[in-house]
């Protein structure tokens, strides 16, 4: 699937991928019946040839039934394992930034009913990231909103989805919605902080409190500040949270560096802008930074990027 090719309708994928209702109880019931019949065959009067034949027939039928059941269960488990492997492959494609293969895999899985609800949730989370990469922000929001409606998600996945949602809103210039999303992100961080404080008090009150920080929230706030013409706020935030951005985001620190460079440029501080832009492009190619944040295209024209050695990707 190329970047230019059309993406299937996301709404159709959400409908098509819903798992079918399982009849696990039916399988267990049939298995139980088979075992009961097998044991019950011993109750038949075997003193006559007819009785012996009946017992043998019941026993054979029961064993065939149970064998059939076990065979079906074997194939069901195998199919679930294949699905799980396919999901893991898509996860790895996303992490390796092989976007066309990841998109193709996700669409392939979501085009038909998936076997396991958790596997479907995982693929949908990956799909939201893939859609962001292809700049299909409205579709990404639709998938994210679907996931946030009662799907079981762990805390960090939930937070990451909210961060992605806020970024999509900012890219679409829905600033009011983005502000609301940022408030929700701050609430999540505050809740996590109070849980961590309670945990510390329970375990050992003399321990120093754990500080909960979100690099994703920092990036979203910086982007909002840059978009809305508040460069000083963006710079202040970057200076305070630079270490958190580095520790939690690794090479994505480039996003913060790029936005800080843009903020300095807005304030007319060319030397600092140049330094930060150079650092940003040391970690991530210019094309990638500008694709994520089109507002930084102007700064890419003003300041030279870092040049990787020959042979570097």
């Amino acid at each position, binding site marked *: 699937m190329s970047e230019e090719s059309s993406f299937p309708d996301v709404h159709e994928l959400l409908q098509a991928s819903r798992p079918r209702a399982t009849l696990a109880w039916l399988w267990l019931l049939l298995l139980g019946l088979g*075992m009961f019949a097998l044991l019950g065959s011993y109750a038949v009067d075997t003193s006559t040839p007819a009785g012996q034949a009946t017992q043998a027939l019941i026993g054979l039928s029961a064993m065939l039934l149970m064998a059939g059941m076990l065979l079906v269960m074997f194939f069901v488990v195998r199919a679930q394992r294949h699905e799980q492997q396919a999901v893991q492959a898509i996860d790895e494609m996303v992490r390796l930034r092989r976007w066309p293969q990841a998109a193709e895999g996700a669409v392939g899985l979501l085009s038909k009913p998936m076997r396991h609800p958790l596997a479907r949730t995982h693929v949908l989370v990956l799909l939201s990231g893939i859609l962001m990469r292809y700049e299909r922000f409205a579709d990404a929001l639709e998938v994210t909103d679907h996931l946030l409606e009662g799907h079981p998600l762990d805390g960090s996945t939930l937070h990451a989805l909210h961060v992605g949602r806020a970024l999509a809103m900012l890219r679409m210039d829905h600033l009011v919605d983005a502000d609301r999303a940022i408030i929700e992100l701050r609430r999540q961080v505050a809740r996590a902080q109070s849980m961590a404080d309670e945990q510390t008090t329970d375990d050992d009150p003399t321990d120093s409190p754990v500080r909960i920080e979100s690099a994703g929230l920092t990036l979203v706030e910086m982007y909002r500040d840059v978009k809305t013409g508040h460069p000083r706020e963006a710079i202040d935030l970057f200076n305070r949270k630079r270490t958190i951005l580095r520790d939690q985001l690794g090479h994505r620190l480039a996003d913060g560096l790029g936005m800080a460079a843009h903020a300095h440029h807005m304030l007319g501080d060319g030397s600092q802008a140049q330094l930060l832009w150079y650092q940003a492009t040391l970690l991530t190619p210019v094309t990638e930074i500008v694709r994520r944040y089109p507002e930084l295209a102007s700064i890419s024209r003003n300041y030279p990027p870092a040049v990787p050695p020959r042979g570097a*990707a």
Partner: protein
Amino acid sequence: MNSDPIIARFQRDLTLGLLLKTLLVVLVVGVFLLRPIIQPRIEPGFVLLGVAIVWVVLSMRSVKLTRLASILPSLIASGQFDLAEQRIVESLRTFSPFRTVKLTGLLHLAMLRHAQHRWSETAMLCRALLRQKPSGASDLSKSTRLMLAEAALAMGDLPTAGESISRLYQQRLSLDQALKLLSIQLDYEAAVGDWERMMHNIAAKVQLAEIMSTEMSARVQALLALAASRRKCDDWSMWLRRRVELLADIELLVSRRPMLRELWTT
């Protein structure tokens, strides 16, 4: 908690489990084969029912153990070592005839010791696991070899580290396992001074480093910078060094890998 009695108990439980499973199979087969002889005295159906009940009870206990064990990796990752150790001890003391359950319990103990940087115990536990000859393609085997390679490297046992690394290259690894192996391999090659091999396919290695965790990424790129410096590839060395300066606290990095100090003193 000393690992020696744990390993001894683990091996004893494996033997007992095998004996129990053999006994149950012998009972079931025996009931069918010897039915004409035993039927006047013992109802074969009751024997089969007894075997089924024992199997179901043991299976349910094992499912419970598996469920308890499922949170162990996250406990270890979040640094809750005491709670993790408590759960692991409970699981290893509980008898289960299922080999996978016992192997997983010992694997979790090895993971805990690995997280605690108790390298000699980690190596001992990994060897005990590998002696059971788990399937080479299984995740258990790969995870065990990765931990053994890292522990051996930390203890300066380069032959063991090298052997584990070369065995892992014969396996199909997940992305996380491949990233971990790359990190260990570079540490190993730096320890033996194989700078040329470290430089081989450096662009691909750097791309993989970019998707590692920050600390691992900085360490890997610093090792590659050192290799580039030793091989007189100054453009690579300079570029990687500058990246590392953005990703890590240099003093902390150098304190953990003293050989990297020369990158910032020359």
